[in-house]
């Protein structure tokens, strides 16, 4: 076999396999959407689930997922950006810093189930927060922090050093320089990274099984006082998210239409994650354009 033939065959194989991957992926997406889309309706998206009857929805779960996302981001973003700033701007190169870097790396590779178990042990039981949105948000924070730190570091590193020098040379303090000069420039990267991280939070289930619980008490959507028990905003109530709901309906569902609900909820989840991805891209492009198009 000549080298030319080998080249042709190899090229063919590579194209074939790539096509196969693309097909499999599209098939996967198509399967989820095809099976689920038919079940999605306004009623499905807004009504509470039924335990044993047909026609349950995913309203509270969808709300829980979004609310949990917001809670998590409220905790993660200041912490993650702070830690990222420390790593990129304050940490002096040396043994300690590289040790911290290792720690962050280890944390980021921890399986989510370990994070969930830790949450169960410490947040749920030791801190006595119970199975609650807050516990879930804290567990997800642990899960998400390393990513946030890395994104912030990446963002800050993309800022030209001349920007920082220019600000410092005006007699501006380092902290003010970070806040007013460096962070705004890093913002597109930090934002689109955060949105991708948000997508990850949205789909996470293993860490939440043990922390946010699998129950969704009926919510009173007319009561927005976070201190009330039935209020959707109460962070101390147990909350089942969409991803956990899929897991539960799949495995424990008593309702006769459990499979359809799981399919519908999966489709909703995928679409949401898709929106997050597209949102991150669009935002990144928009902000990039805003800064450079004026040139």
């Amino acid at each position, binding site marked *: 076999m000549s080298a030319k033939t080998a080249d042709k065959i*190899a090229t063919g194989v590579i194209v074939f396999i790539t096509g196969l991957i693309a097909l499999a992926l599209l098939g996967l997406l198509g399967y989820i959407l095809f099976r689920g889309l038919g079940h999605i309706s306004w009623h499905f998206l807004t009504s509470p689930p039924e335990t044993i009857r047909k026609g349950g929805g995913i309203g509270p779960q969808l709300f829980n997922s979004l609310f949990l996302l917001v809670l998590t981001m409220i905790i993660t973003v200041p912490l993650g950006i702070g830690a990222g700033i420390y790593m990129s701007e304050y940490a002096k190169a040396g043994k300690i810093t590289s040790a911290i870097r290792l720690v962050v790396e280890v944390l980021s590779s921890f399986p989510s189930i370990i994070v969930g178990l830790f949450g169960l042990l410490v947040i749920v039981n030791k801190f006595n927060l119970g199975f609650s949105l807050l516990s879930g948000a804290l567990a997800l924070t642990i899960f998400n922090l390393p990513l946030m730190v890395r994104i912030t570091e990446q963002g800050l590193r993309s800022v030209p050093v001349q920007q920082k020098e220019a600000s410092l040379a005006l007699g501006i303090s380092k*902290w003010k320089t970070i806040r007013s000069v460096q962070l705004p420039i890093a913002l597109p990267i930090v934002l689109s990274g955060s949105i991708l991280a948000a997508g990850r939070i949205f789909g996470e289930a293993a860490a939440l099984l043990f922390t946010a619980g699998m129950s969704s008490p009926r919510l009173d959507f007319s009561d927005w006082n976070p201190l009330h028990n039935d209020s959707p905003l109460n962070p101390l109530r147990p909350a089942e998210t969409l991803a956990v709901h899929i897991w539960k309906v799949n495995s424990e569902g008593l309702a006769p239409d459990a499979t359809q609900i799981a399919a519908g909820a999966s489709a909703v989840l995928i679409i949401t994650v898709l929106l997050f991805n597209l949102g991150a891209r669009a935002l990144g492009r928009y902000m990039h354009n805003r800064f450079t198009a004026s040139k």
Partner: protein
Amino acid sequence: MKKSNDREVATPHLAEEWVGKVYTFICILFLIITIFSMVYFVASKGLSTFIVNGVNVKDLLTGLKWKPDGEPPMFGALPFIFGSFSTSILAAIIAAPLGFCAAVFMVELSPKIGRTFMQPVIELLAGIPSVVYGFVGLSVIVPLFRDLFPGQGVGIAAGSLVLAFMILPTITTIATDALASLPAGLKEGSYALGATRWQTIYRIVLPTTLPAQMTGIVLGIARAFGEALAVQMVIGNAPHIPNSLFESTSTLTSAITLSMGNTAMGSVQNNALWSLALILMLMTFVFVFIIRWLEGRKKL
């Protein structure tokens, strides 16, 4: 002297610098404390099986029988360890060549289709939640395997196929980055000598990027190793080392999710599950160090 004058200017920004330093330091401290307490709590729980309940470490690591409520209870976790390793490594064996082909396609063959089509699709694949993978695995792969092969469809084969899909984005992305960052001269030199594209890829590109490729593969294995729900839904969960790829078996993660809620904290049954979690955590360390080592080699 103008000292006093200086201080007037100085004070507010000094306080401000202090705020920034302290704030960011607290953030990083929180992170460090979190991870150390995680290691501490998981380790102390996991070790109490041996210390409090007197289970032999060797029995746990090499025992073949998992009978937590038997008489006497037996905690042989080897089937789980075997299950975790076999599914995640097999997943990598499936995903690595696929990821490499996709990367070659995207970088060498058709960057345009790669960028506008493959890249977004693969990123999207990374975003699909693991419960959805499990759901699809249970409703598509398991019945398919049940029809095609002897057995019930569940098992290592189904588990590793689902995992292969899940880690494909990681492997592909890293492989793509590695290929794209290759110095241009390297390939051109090879082409100039009359080598075909395949010869260049096979003789030059693959060896040069091998450490990077390996990093991607190890990252993929690490992710597969820790994945819980998707695997648990398709693996079958029998606590035995299976006789075939299509026979029900367990992984560390599936054993934990299956029984954690059913056992009371502090009981030996529960502690044994924490020991599994400890093994999982130690493996995470191992993976991190392997990746570090590989990245160290990449720089050379």
